[in-house]
């Protein structure tokens, strides 16, 4: 549960720009991989295709044997319920408490009240925000918001965890903590794909690297 494959994927936007060009990549289940590349290389586009937010112009994005581009409107939400996604901007609900933000994926899948508490609190504890559970996001620092976003991404125990520059707002110490968190999920069998600029961090972890250059696959490592 959680193998990812891009097969000759090209993504051309309405303005004619090709953000990905004939990309073929396989990420096995349980792998942790980094997507690296200059700004505009196509990292975010790669992740948005995986989330089913964009669909490929050509080729297939296949997750767990299913062509994501062909999922019906009804099935797409169910697929997303098995993913966890973290963005550089945490995209939190500003009028909801930290707790409610993290509980959202559980509400979507119909988890009961007591179980929500049982699962939200450990997730908040892992990102070190248990004491702020009643705060509104406006009272949090950028790094804290980012960590709320991470807690929300992992609270439903996703099969695939996607992160777009998750450490962009964090100091080196916190970045390392976040990566350690991702590593923990990787160790229990979650497929983790992280787009990042942070060369030092990527090198220090020694994981698989997918290198993008102007939308084309430029080798990498792993």
């Amino acid at each position: 549960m959680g193998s990812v494959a891009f097969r000759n994927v090209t993504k051309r936007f309405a303005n004619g720009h090709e953000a990905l060009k004939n990309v073929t990549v396989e990420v096995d289940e349980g792998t942790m991989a980094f997507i690296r590349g200059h700004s505009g290389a196509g990292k975010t586009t790669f992740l948005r295709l995986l989330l089913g937010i964009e669909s490929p112009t050509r080729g297939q994005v296949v997750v767990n044997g299913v062509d994501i581009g062909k999922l019906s409107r009804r099935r797409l939400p169910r697929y997303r319920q098995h993913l966890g996604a973290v963005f550089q901007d945490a995209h939190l609900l500003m009028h909801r408490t930290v707790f409610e933000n993290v509980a959202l994926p559980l509400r979507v899948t119909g988890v009961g009240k007591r179980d929500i508490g049982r699962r939200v609190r450990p997730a908040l504890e892992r990102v070190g925000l248990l004491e702020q559970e009643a705060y509104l996001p406006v009272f949090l620092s950028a790094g804290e918001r980012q960590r709320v976003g991470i807690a929300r991404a992992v609270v439903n125990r996703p099969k695939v965890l996607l992160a777009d520059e998750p450490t962009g707002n964090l100091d080196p110490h916190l970045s390392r903590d976040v990566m350690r968190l991702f590593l923990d999920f990787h160790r229990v069998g979650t497929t983790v794909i992280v787009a990042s600029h942070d060369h030092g961090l990527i090198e220090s972890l020694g994981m698989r690297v997918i290198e993008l250059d102007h939308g084309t696959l430029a080798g990498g490592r792993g």
Partner: protein
Amino acid sequence: MGRQTDPWPAHARPAFATVRDHARVAGESFYFVSSRVGASLVIWLLIGIALALPGGLYLIERNLTGAMDRWEGRVGLSVYFEPGSGSAGAQALAARLEAMEETERVWVVTPEEALEEFRGDTEVSDALDLLEDNPLPASVRVSLAEGVPSATVSRLAGEASADEAVEEVVIETTWLERLAAIAAAVERLGWMLAGLFGLGAALVTLSSVRLAIESRLEELRVQKLVGGTDAFVRRPFLYLGIIYGVGGGVLAAVLNAAALLALEAPLRTLLEGYGQDLELTGLDHIFAGALLGVGALLGVCGAMVASRQRLRGLEPV
């Protein structure tokens, strides 16, 4: 690649989960509405007025036809005697009519009583005092039994006018015919207004719900990102539509009740002139329930259209 039965199975979902989510969303929607009392009240009033107009016309029409039903076949006769002929002739005629099977109620209005009635009705009593003689005639009023054929009515009228002292016999059917025509017109007007104003009520919810959606677009995007289904994302807005619609229905019922209360006194006076007691009907729990139901339905429809328009192409983040 071997095809599994379902590579992305639905999360184990407790049987009660959807009901629970409905309850949660309903609560949140109430909170949303009550935290914006001012704006919500305006919306309720708009919908309420839109529903109250056709509702009120329905009540009027229903009471008019109700009144006609009660009078059907009970045509009245008024036999007016020559002024100054005294009431003895009237008493005699009344006795004769009373004995007939076709009559239900016969009563004599003496010139004195007629004068009293006239005094009560008008503000010319001072002028009346100046007159030496009572200018009003005695009369016999007859209400006929149910189902008396019009031929019999004419025969009775003929018999009454055969009396020397009788000046005029009035068959009181014309006002019934008029009433029937008015009721038919009111009914038609009611349907037209119901269509127009129902559409108006739906449009009011539509634009209010659209505003609510617009103000929460960020939230909806996040919900879609974490796998919120269309039903899940749309749910709060359907409840919003229901709350707006039902609230409008409540206000419409209140407005109708107030209007009926205000109309009761003048209508009573009007009907008493025909020897009838006022019996306003229609404003019961069924009517109120129908207003709420129609309000809820229109609210849901408006909310459906709004969320369909706005949420269809909405992509997360």
